[in-house]
């Protein structure tokens, strides 16, 4: 019997690609953010509205991660932004290698920013570095205000929390959602996290998010 001390990172292959992506993006001076949430929180709607409202001010390219279909990339292209669709064929997260392929297909020299929409999942994507400048987590009102407490990893790792579908709290719908609880629980894990309550549908609160995003492109 022989014991071998290995001491190697299990996801080193992914990390090597993440480093490649970081270097590629740095060469173009293009920041990149990794958007993570449950399915149906409104990631694509946020992207479409952001691209439309910032047209002429911020040139955004998008990498769309989905298990199947190119529905999301089509929605982004309809908003007149370049989009690459990656189908993970069952995998619950994007890998840095897949994002690398996406980056090589985007016209990076004509972009101010790359936004990656990860596969809808609040757990798995948080474990895979893509070479991004930061993670953005989206939580929508109907999912409930207990998610930062129940899925701490992604809230601990993200630079921004977008609380989407805030319009549902205004419309007289029967929704129990305590925004203050979300803020308290998220900040308990991550004091530096920026929290923007928004509605990608009505536009409520979106300006603060745009200001943050625009500042990142100029940083």
């Amino acid at each position: 019997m022989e014991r071998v001390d290995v001491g190697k990172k299990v996801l080193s292959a992914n990390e090597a690609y993440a480093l490649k992506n970081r270097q590629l993006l740095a060469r173009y001076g293009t920041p990149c953010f990794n958007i993570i949430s449950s399915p149906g929180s409104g990631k694509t709607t946020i992207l479409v509205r952001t691209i439309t409202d910032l047209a002429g001010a911020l040139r955004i390219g998008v990498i769309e991660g989905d298990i199947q279909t190119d529905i999301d990339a089509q929605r982004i292209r309809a908003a007149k932004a370049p989009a690459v669709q990656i189908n993970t064929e069952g995998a619950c997260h994007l890998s840095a290698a897949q994002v690398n392929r996406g980056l090589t297909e985007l016209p990076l020299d004509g972009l101010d920013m790359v936004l990656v929409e990860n596969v809808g999942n609040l757990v798995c994507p948080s474990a895979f570095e893509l070479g991004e400048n930061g993670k953005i987590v989206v939580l929508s009102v109907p999912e409930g205000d207990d998610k930062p407490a129940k899925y701490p990893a992604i809230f601990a790792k993200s630079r921004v929390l977008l609380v989407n579908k805030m319009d549902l709290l205004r419309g007289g719908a029967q929704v129990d959602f305590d925004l203050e609880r979300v803020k308290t629980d998220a900040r308990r894990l991550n004091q530096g996290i920026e929290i923007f309550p928004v509605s990608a549908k009505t536009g409520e609160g979106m300006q603060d998010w745009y200001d943050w995003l625009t500042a990142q492109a100029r940083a």
Partner: protein
Amino acid sequence: MHETAVAQSLVEMISQEAQSRHARPIRAKMSCGELNAINDEVLSFAFEAVAQGTPCEGMRLQIEHKPLQAKCKTCGRDFVVDLSNVKCPSCGGGDFELLPDAPLLLEQIELEGTDDGES
């Protein structure tokens, strides 16, 4: 189920290590941090499934969880974080900084010789 990708990577790393030493892997030890969100049962199941038909088939995987630590900004102490209720156990303060989480690490492999039938 990102455990499947982790299992795939483990099987590749262990198989490579074993083959380069012309030996058979019996047991491996890996460690992970709390923010890697690894579920032992899921990872063990995925590892067993992915290992089928590889040199890792039938071997045992031991998973160690390294606690997440934080530094209290009020009293300066380092403490182990309970993600369900993060506060400094010394002063009760809630002003802290999370320290880097442990990475997913393949720590050690136990191999058994195959060339000479030694065990």
